């Protein structure tokens, strides 16, 4: 589709860009103490964007802007998910004391730009667009991570992020250019057809390219061995940013990973019969091992953490591992499971970070296990919510986390028996993760004493706790709406799966 025609499909993005521009200008007229209002502007824009999905052709599946981005339900699923995540983060940011004394207009504007970048990530079908979208998201993330100018840790985190980010995006770019060199095209679907008839001598180059590109995606979803930035960046960045990084770019990373491997490296297009074999590398086994290492490392290192925030950073690595479990076969069930998992993970992880932020506000920046001592008695609502989030992250019913795990296990068990070991690895990892998640619960309830005075968090915090907590509980009991939504989003550009 040409550029002009594409615009009618591009309404959400256009609204988003307009919002960003308006907020840039609005920020100029706001005093420092009022700069948090920009967040509301962006939030308003996001809500309008969300509604605009009603006005674009829902069921069309096509390409936009001269075949550079895809328009399909799969992309729209991620876009809506990202808007929800960003909406939460904007509200959470307004609650955090970390950001309350600095000019925050740009902060919210950057969040808006990041949403735009992630929209592109979710729909890119062109190598150039892949690189551009990943870079937009990365560069904005660097700035956000280092947003606390006076904080040493935040600066360190930003710098580390830049270095790792530059390195991995360099690798990815190298991979992309090799792929272009081999195939002579930048479009995913053309790459696939060219590879189908390529000279076997080119396979080695393709393998190298794929591995390099995987490094770039792996960095975004913080999969081992591209995870080294995660703990430090998560620890140093402002907590709302950490929460954001652990959810949104991860989701976008999975979107682009699934789309790239599915569209450009799959053999026939029917995912059930997908065979990476012709690239000469045992892809499924490689991804399975990657998943195993990711979750095991995340879980085992998380046990030793003293800071809850850092513990959650490692836990987010582990969760990337669980989601990767469903990738090796890229079956329909697998993609379905990843999408469900991402929805469930969004609520429980944002909720957990929200509690960390409230505790940080309360304890003047404390985020260690020590600071959570007796929290359940001091602030029963907060303690109860945190217990729910921890149980959900462990994956115990009746919470959303269990449903996510259930579908992931299901997808692997429905595949080839040679991957069943992965399910057992995932199961045992869940048990390991219980140990450190329960430690939070233990500290909150068992180590403290009953307090005579109970403090209640602010109304907005309560609303946010309910906003993340209720879905965590309700989707654990009744998740048909989510299942239906995911079901209807299982349409890729060139094939319905």
């Amino acid at each position, binding site marked *: 589709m040409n550029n002009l025609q594409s615009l009618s499909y591009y309404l959400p993005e256009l609204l988003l860009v307009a919002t960003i521009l308006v907020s840039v200008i609005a920020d100029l007229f706001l005093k420092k103490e009022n700069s948090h209002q920009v967040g509301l502007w962006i939030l308003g824009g996001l809500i309008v964007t969300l509604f605009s999905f009603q006005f674009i052709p829902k069921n069309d599946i096509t390409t936009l802007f001269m075949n550079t981005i895809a328009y399909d339900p799969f992309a729209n699923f991620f876009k809506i998910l990202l808007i929800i995540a960003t909406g939460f983060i904007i509200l959470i940011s307004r609650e955090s004391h970390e950001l309350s004394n600095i000019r925050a207009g740009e902060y919210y504007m950057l969040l808006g730009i990041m949403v735009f970048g992630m929209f592109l990530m979710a729909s890119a079908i062109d190598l150039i667009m892949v690189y551009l979208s990943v870079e937009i998201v990365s560069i904005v993330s660097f700035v956000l991570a280092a947003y606390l100018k006076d904080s040493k840790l935040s600066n360190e985190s930003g710098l580390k992020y830049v270095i790792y980010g530059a390195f991995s995006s360099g690798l990815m770019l190298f991979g992309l250019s090799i792929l272009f060199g081999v195939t002579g095209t930048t479009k995913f679907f053309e790459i696939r057809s060219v590879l189908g008839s390529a000279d076997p001598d080119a396979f080695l180059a393709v393998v190298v390219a794929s591995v390099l590109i995987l490094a770039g995606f792996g960095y975004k979803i913080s999969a081992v061995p591209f995870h080294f930035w995660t703990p430090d960046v998560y620890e140093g960045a402002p907590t709302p940013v950490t929460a954001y990084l652990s959810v949104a770019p991860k989701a976008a990373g999975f979107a682009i990973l699934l789309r790239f491997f599915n569209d450009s490296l799959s053999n026939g297009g029917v995912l059930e019969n997908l065979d990476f074999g012709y690239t000469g590398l045992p892809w499924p086994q490689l991804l399975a091992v990657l998943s195993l290492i990711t979750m095991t490392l995340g879980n085992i290192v998380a046990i030793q953490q003293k800071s809850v925030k850092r513990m959650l950073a490692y836990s987010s690595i582990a969760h990337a591992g669980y989601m990767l479990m469903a990738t090796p076969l890229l079956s329909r069930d697998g993609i379905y499971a990843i999408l469900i998992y991402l929805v469930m993970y969004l609520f429980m992880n944002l909720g957990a970070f929200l509690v960390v932020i409230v505790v940080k506000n309360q304890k003047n920046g404390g985020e260690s296990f020590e600071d959570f001592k007796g929290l359940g008695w001091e602030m029963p609502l907060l303690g109860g919510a945190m*217990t729910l989030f921890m*149980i959900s992250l462990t994956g*115990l*019913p*009746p919470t959303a986390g*269990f449903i996510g795990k*259930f579908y992931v*296990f*299901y997808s692997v*068990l*429905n595949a080839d*028996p*040679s991957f*069943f070991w992965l*399910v*057992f690895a995932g*199961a*045992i990892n*869940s*048990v390991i993760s*219980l*140990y450190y998640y*329960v430690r939070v*619960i*233990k500290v909150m*309830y*068992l180590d403290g004493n*009953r307090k005579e005075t109970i403090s209640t968090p602010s109304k907005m915090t309560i609303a946010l706790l309910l906003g993340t907590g209720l879905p965590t509980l309700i989707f654990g009991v*009744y*998740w*048909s709406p989510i*299942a*239906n939504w995911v*079901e209807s989003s299982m349409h890729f550009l060139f094939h319905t799966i």
Partner: protein
Amino acid sequence: MEYILSWLIWLPVVGIVVILFIPREREYIIKMTAVVTTGIQLALALFLWSKFDSGLGTFQFIEKAEWIPSINIFYSLGVDGLSLPMVILTPLLSFLAVFVSWNIDRAVKGYFALFLLLDTGMIGVFLALDFFLFYVFWEVMLLPMYFLIGMWGGPQREYAAIKFFLYTLVGSVLMLVAVIGLYLNCGKTFDIPTLMETAPNALSGVMWWGFSAIKIIWILLFIGFAIKVPVFPFHTWLPLAHVEAPTAISVILAGVLLKLGVYGLLRINYPMLPDAVFWFSGAMALLGLINVIWGAMCALAQTDLKKLVAYSSINHMGYALLGMAAVIAAGAVNGGNQAAAQAGLSGAVFQMFNHGTISAMLFILVGVVYDRAHHRDIDGFGGLAKQMPLYAGMCMIAFFAGLGLPGFSGFVSEFMCFIGAFPVFKVIVIISTIGILLNAAYFLSAYKRIFFGELNEKYKDMPEINRRELLTVIPLAVITILFGIYPRPFLDIISNTIDHLIYQVTQMGGYAGF
């Protein structure tokens, strides 16, 4: 009364909601809410019993509603002869346990709310006819149990609680894999009655890594349930959890939670994987023997009265395992000895119920003396019979019931397990009778050290067992003696279901199918 099973499950949740709205200073009202909730639940369970048709042997009072249609999950409940005894025992023990926990002084509101949540989970497992629902209820019990042990327990409570949590979770995640495996291979359904019919055939010939899927799923489920039973070598969480838990929770733990393991094996493993029953029953009998001997030997060595009772639980569950292994006597290979299988399985179910009442009684009585003396060292008492004659009398009943003296229900069920298993596992049965002897040894020697001899000067003012405590023990003692003399009513409830189960195992299973 159409939704009586749903009421049984969700009544405690109503109680929780009520409790959450009561201010935390009003402890009496909170306790009364728990009493009323569990009381109504008990009344409902007894009503259910009166309406239950024991002549059928199939599921009754079935409720079925769509839950998640996209993957065929139903909210499906039902009760049969296997679950009915447990459906009566659970509210009974919960009701008594509320009185046992009357002296809880810390965070009363939280305690009773969690207690009722635990109650919902337990009864839900016994009533669920959908495997997914079963699993959800199974897991719902974990968190309340963690808190109840970890917050209101003894000095080592935190360690005990996390150990319990981790052990059980290992079992449950393995069970989850098995649940999904069964679902995928047996027509994509979680419906337990349907799975009973389809699973035995659907799984034959399915191979996982060159092993029969039947064997692997059996092992996964067995580990999940064995941790709850607990079967040696998965038993190490139990003495610790029992000792550290507050009295009421020990009662629930021994009385109901351990039963879930045996119940799960009989409800899931036996009918769904009948081939593997034949394959595994030898090992099961052996594990039963180890449980019997190991539990008794360990009990013999204890100086802590509560630990002694905890190890006696391991010993008692060993008899149930032995009885369960006896089902293969009815197989064609073993001469189709229907009577032995009948005796063994009925014995196992009966033993499961009896252990529920007897060990509950024992734990309550240990709690009584602990509340007064603040220690449980068997050698630290002496001569208590003079000081507390009534208490000594109650303990005598409980200890005699525990060691399996004829006239008490424990004797009947152990005897049935033995005669059931004898035709097939002669040597194992002969050796395991030593367990009975050891039982008598540790119970009697503990009794002697606590109640006879010189009265310990420290305890000359020890108050006698009070009315509230008596109220909690007497119903259990009555049940124990009643069923010891006349077990017929109980066996009538279960016999048709047991016949059904034996038929299922022997007709659908065999040595073939692998």
